[in-house]
């Protein structure tokens, strides 16, 4: 039958030997390429990881949402398929903690959260990225300009010469205020001190618009320290060397009273239960006149799709207290969990996502203001675009980063901070819900935090314990 068909269609007959010779000749270039491929640097190959899939976990932030939109660019450039999960901050940290502790390697890239940096890096759960950075096969010399990252943004993820994460955000606390309401009430300028802030909040506060909005739940251990440190209080005596808690000092009591007054008495009712997205929604609806928080949280007010106050807000440095100007900073990075076997595809993603080009794009197109790259912050286009309500955002951020670079932020990166921060939230909500007085809540907080640091193996320096 087959012979008949061949004959009928006049297919030229090919001998077996000719066929084998032809096949061998055809395979030669491909074979040669496959031998040569390992000799070429991975970075130099166009798509060394084409066809691979990676999973990325990152906190739900304006930057991450923007990154997801431009993922096709990365996928077509590298051939790597990315599944990107945007998780609520607390949910991410909890899942990441479990995932990292299990040693599993099924999430290729993960957020390296500021307050968990001490704990995760200390437990050897994060990959040291330095060998990847220094390997010309993995990284072109001009591909990652580490020195371009602001020192305060990359130092929490470095241990000596080793780097465990590349930052994508350098959060700084700022004061966002409603310039239209200030004008209407005849308030000439944003408050310079926390007392002034309370006075202004009192003046503005009404049933429709609260004087101030403080984010609740876990956001409290981020916002409250602005007041705590500005009033001369501290979390620990001298972390990480001396972890003696300082939470019930008279300075701490004074700062907490001021914070409670402006957050509860002149705040949005129920705000102590607000997550960051709840708080953003309330501010964007025009229900509050001031808010001190991370720029990444505040910048949601600049999103024209969601905010009714885009052209009504302005920004200023957070107020100062009796002990001076003590704003807070926090950086987050992208890391490769230690359990990931093939780190190449994840590294490609990190290089791309934290590159100057992508971070500039996130800033200019998605209002991701808190970029950790000096080249973007000093960019004339950035300055032009983000001079908001008369406030030069780049200059404000630089001032905050400089102030917080003095070293008082180390309390946040110690291994015990997540537990201490959670206990702080309990104390602050006990105060705001009037279950305890400020003094009693802080005494109880101090007692419990002493227990936490002792349980972690630290010694309490009796002479450093606060006396009120």
């Amino acid at each position: 039958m087959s012979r008949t068909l061949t004959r009928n269609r006049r297919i030229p007959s090919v001998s077996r030997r000719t066929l084998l010779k032809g096949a061998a000749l055809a395979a030669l270039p491909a074979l040669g390429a496959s031998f040569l491929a390992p000799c070429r640097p991975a970075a130099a190959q166009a798509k060394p990881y084409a066809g691979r899939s990676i999973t990325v976990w990152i906190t739900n932030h304006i930057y991450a949402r923007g990154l997801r939109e431009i993922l096709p660019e990365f996928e077509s450039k590298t051939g790597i398929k990315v599944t990107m999960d945007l998780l609520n901050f607390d949910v991410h940290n909890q899942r990441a903690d479990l995932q990292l502790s299990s040693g599993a390697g099924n999430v290729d890239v993960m957020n390296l959260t500021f307050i968990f940096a001490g704990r995760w890096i200390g437990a050897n759960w994060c990959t040291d990225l330095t060998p990847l950075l220094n390997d010309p096969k993995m990284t072109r010399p001009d591909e990652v300009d580490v020195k371009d990252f602001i020192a305060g943004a990359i130092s929490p993820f470095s241990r000596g010469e080793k780097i465990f994460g590349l930052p994508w955000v350098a959060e700084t606390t700022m004061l966002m205020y409603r310039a239209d309401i200030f004008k209407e009430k005849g308030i000439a300028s944003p408050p310079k001190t926390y007392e002034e802030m309370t006075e202004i909040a009192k003046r503005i506060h009404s049933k429709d618009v609260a004087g101030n909005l403080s984010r609740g739940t876990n956001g409290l251990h981020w916002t409250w320290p602005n007041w705590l440190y500005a009033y001369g209080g501290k979390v620990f005596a001298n972390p990480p060397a001396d972890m003696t808690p300082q939470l019930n000092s008279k300075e701490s009591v004074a700062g907490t009273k001021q914070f409670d007054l402006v957050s509860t008495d002149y705040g949005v009712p129920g705000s102590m239960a607000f997550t960051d997205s709840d708080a953003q929604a309330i501010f964007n609806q025009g229900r509050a006149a001031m808010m001190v928080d991370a720029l990444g949280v505040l910048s949601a007010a600049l999103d024209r799709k969601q905010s009714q106050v885009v052209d009504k807000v302005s920004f200023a440095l957070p107020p100062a207290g009796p002990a001076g100007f003590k704003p807070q900073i926090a950086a987050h990075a992208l890391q490769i969990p230690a359990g990931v076997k093939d780190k190449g595809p994840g590294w490609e993603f990190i290089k791309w996502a934290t590159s100057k080009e992508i971070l500039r794009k996130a800033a200019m197109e998605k209002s991701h203001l808190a970029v950790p790259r000096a080249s973007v912050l000093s960019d004339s286009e950035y300055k032009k675009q983000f001079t908001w309500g008369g406030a030069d955002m780049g200059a404000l951020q630089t001032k905050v980063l400089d102030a917080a670079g003095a070293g008082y932020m180390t309390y946040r990166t110690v291994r015990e901070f997540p537990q201490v921060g959670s206990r702080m939230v309990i104390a602050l909500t006990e105060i705001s819900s009037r279950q305890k007085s400020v003094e009693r809540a802080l005494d109880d907080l101090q007692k419990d935090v002493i227990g936490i640091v002792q349980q972690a193996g630290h010694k309490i320096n009796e002479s450093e314990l606060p006396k009120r």
Partner: protein
Amino acid sequence: MAETRVERQVARTLAKRGERAGWTRQRERLYVAYAVPALLILFVVTIVPTLFLLGTSLTNLNPSMPGTLRFIGLQNYQVLLQQDRFWNSIWVQVRLSFWTVSLQLLIGLGIALLLNSRLRFLELIRSLFIIPMVLPPVVVAIIWKVLFVPNISPVSWALSLAGIQGPAWLVHPFWALFAIIVAETWEWFPFTMLMLLAALQMMPEEPLEAAKIDGASSVQVLWHIVLPLLKPAIIVALLFRLIDSVKAFPHIYIMTAGGPGVATEPTNFYAYLQAFTFSLVGFGSSISTIILILTLALSLLIVRIVGRMVDYE
């Protein structure tokens, strides 16, 4: 020597007995052979984790600190029993269980009595009442969280129409617990309703008719006939709901995260925070062990009470 007739009969009887004893033994062996795999699986999935939990509770295991798996005896329990936060969590659990179970039983019973009819319309209504129970608890928690957020809360809006300013529900220690009790009751009263409705529909007609003929009022029929006959079903529903109430978690996690302060933090939530948020697995295990002991004691107590109160004959 020839066997007598009596001797032959005795021999036959003994042989039969031997056969029977052998058969009984074989049957017993077969039962054991069938039961052993199931018992082994049960042992692996229940007893082994429990033993692991007990073992872990005697260590300071913290996966974020390598080398912390060290035997520390009863130290975790000593620390725990001295903590105000632990005792507060027990007290929160007691209040939560008491109010949610009581309300679920009362509302479930009331609606079951109202729906106890074979009318087509009421059957449709019955299906509607089941909706909260089939929703995922996380969805229920989100619904109620939205309902209780002051600025957007329809509850606060409805109160404002009546000139009452609603509280900041989820940040007030009393109202936050109240909100969780409401959400938990709303989700689970259909369960008690269904159980009691089934019992009502199985109830014999004769005692009810006899009581009516004797001139008993509706209240008297309910009190003296219906409720005593429903007692077994009520107790079983109580037992189920009580055990389930100790597992209340999603509503608390979503609505209040245990706050304000620790006003809505029951013991299981406290254990979760310690073990999974702070990686204090050893310490968290000691809390779980205490929850296990308390739940077992409660279950045994209820089973004994049920045994005394319910006459299944």
